[in-house]
C-alpha cells in the first residue's frame, strides 16, 4: 500500500457486495424459519461469518491491505478463538451436574 500507492475499489464492487449482503440477510431469516435442529445455529453463524468476511475484505479493504494489516486482523480473530475455544473446553467437558436453577441448591440437599 505505501509502496504502490492506494488501491481504490470501484463502486461496482461495492454495489455487488451490498447486494450480496442483503441477499444473505434474507437467506438467514428464511433459514431460521426452518427447523434444522442444532444446525440452525451453525447455519446462522456461517452466514454471518460470510457476511463479515465480505465487509472486511471489500468495504474495509482487507483484501488490498498490506500483509502487516492482514496479520493484525487475523490475530484479533485468533485471540478471540483462543478465548472462546479454551473456555468452552471447560464447559463442554464438565461432568453433568444437577441443573443450575433459580432455586438455591439447598433444596436437593434436603431431599437427599
Amino acid at each position, binding site marked *: 500500500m505505501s509502496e504502490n500507492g492506494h488501491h481504490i475499489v470501484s463502486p461496482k464492487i461495492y454495489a455487488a457486495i451490498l447486494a450480496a449482503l442483503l441477499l444473505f440477510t434474507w437467506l438467514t431469516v428464511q433459514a431460521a424459519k426452518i427447523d434444522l435442529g442444532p444446525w440452525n445455529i451453525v447455519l446462522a453463524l456461517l452466514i454471518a461469518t460470510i457476511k463479515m468476511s465480505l465487509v472486511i475484505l471489500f468495504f474495509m479493504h482487507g483484501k488490498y491491505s498490506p500483509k502487516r494489516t492482514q496479520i493484525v486482523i487475523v490475530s484479533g480473530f485468533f485471540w478471540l478463538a483462543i478465548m472462546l475455544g479454551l473456555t468452552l473446553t471447560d464447559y463442554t467437558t464438565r461432568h453433568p451436574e444437577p441443573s*443450575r436453577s433459580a432455586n438455591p*441448591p439447598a*433444596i436437593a440437599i434436603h431431599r437427599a
Partner: protein
Amino acid sequence: MQSQLPLYPESASNFAPDVDGLMLFIIAVCIFFAVAITIAVIYFFFRYKRKEPGDIGAPIHGDMRLEITWIVVPFFLLMAMFGWGAVIYVDYRHTPADTLDVYVIGKQWMWKLEQPNGRREINELHVPVNRNVRLVMASEDVIHDFSVPAFRVKMDVVPGHYNTMWFRPTKAGRYHFFCSQYCGTSHAIMGGWVTVMEPDEYAAWLAGTSGTSDPVALGAKLYNELACGTCHLPDGKGRGPSYNGVYGSKVKLADGSTVVADEAYIRESILQPNAKIVAGFQPVMPSFQGLVSEDQILALTAYIKAQKDQPVPGKSDAAAPATGKK
C-alpha cells in the same frame, strides 16, 4: 497443638502422603536450580569484578548448545511435575463409589453440615477414620471454599453448582477447616473443626440426639425477624392476608381461580409473591428470594401450618375465606 514454629501441617488423610511426596520432589528440583543459579551469580560477581575502569568483557554472544540444553532439560522436569500432579488431581476429582456422603452448605459466614442420617452440625464435621468421605457442597450466597490443610484438600463451594470432594481420613484427631475463598466480612471466622473418630465412636456419636430445634418455634422467630407481621396481621386486616387457617384451605385468587394452599404454594408466595395474588389484595409484597434460605422456608411453612387451627378472621365465605396469601 503444635510447637511454636510449625513448618508443615499434620498429615491425616490418604492425599497427604501423595501431596507431600510431590511437594518434596518439586522442592528438591527448585532448591537445586535456585542454589545453582545463586552460586553462579555470586561466583561470577566476585570472579569477574571489574579491575580497571575501562575494561570490557569478552564478546560472547551466545551458544546454541547451551540454549537447547536449558530448554530441553527443564522441559522434561516440568513434564514430570505436570504428570505427577495430574495423577493426584485426577484421583482427587474422581470419587470412589463407596463413600459416606456429607452434605455441606456454605453461607455467609457459617458452614452447615448434614450427616447421612440427617444429623446436622454447624462448623463441625465428624467423620470416621479410614472411610472414604464425600462432601457434596453447595452455597446459598457467594462462593466459599472448604479447605482442610491436614487432609491437603480443598474445593470451592459455588452458588448454583454442586461441587464434590472426597478424602479418607487416616488419623483420628481434630483438625482445622477453613473457608478459603474470600466471601465477605467474616470470611476469616468461617471455619471450624473436623473431628476424625474411630468408627465405633463415630457410630455412637451419630446415634446421639439430633441438634435440630423445633421448626415451628424457628418459624415464629423468623415471622418476627422478617417483619411478616407488619402486613400479614392475624385479623386479616393488614395489607396482606392472614395466615390463620390458611394451610390446606382453598384460596381465591385475584384472577378468579382458586388454589389449594399447600407447601408449594407457600414457598412460591414467599419467593415469587406476585405469581398468585389473593383476591382483594394488591401485589405489594417484595420477593424474599435470596433473603430466606430453604431451611428457613421450611420453618416458615411449618409455622404457617401451625396456624391451621386458629380461627379464620373476617367473614367466612363458603369454601374460600379471604386468607391464604402470605
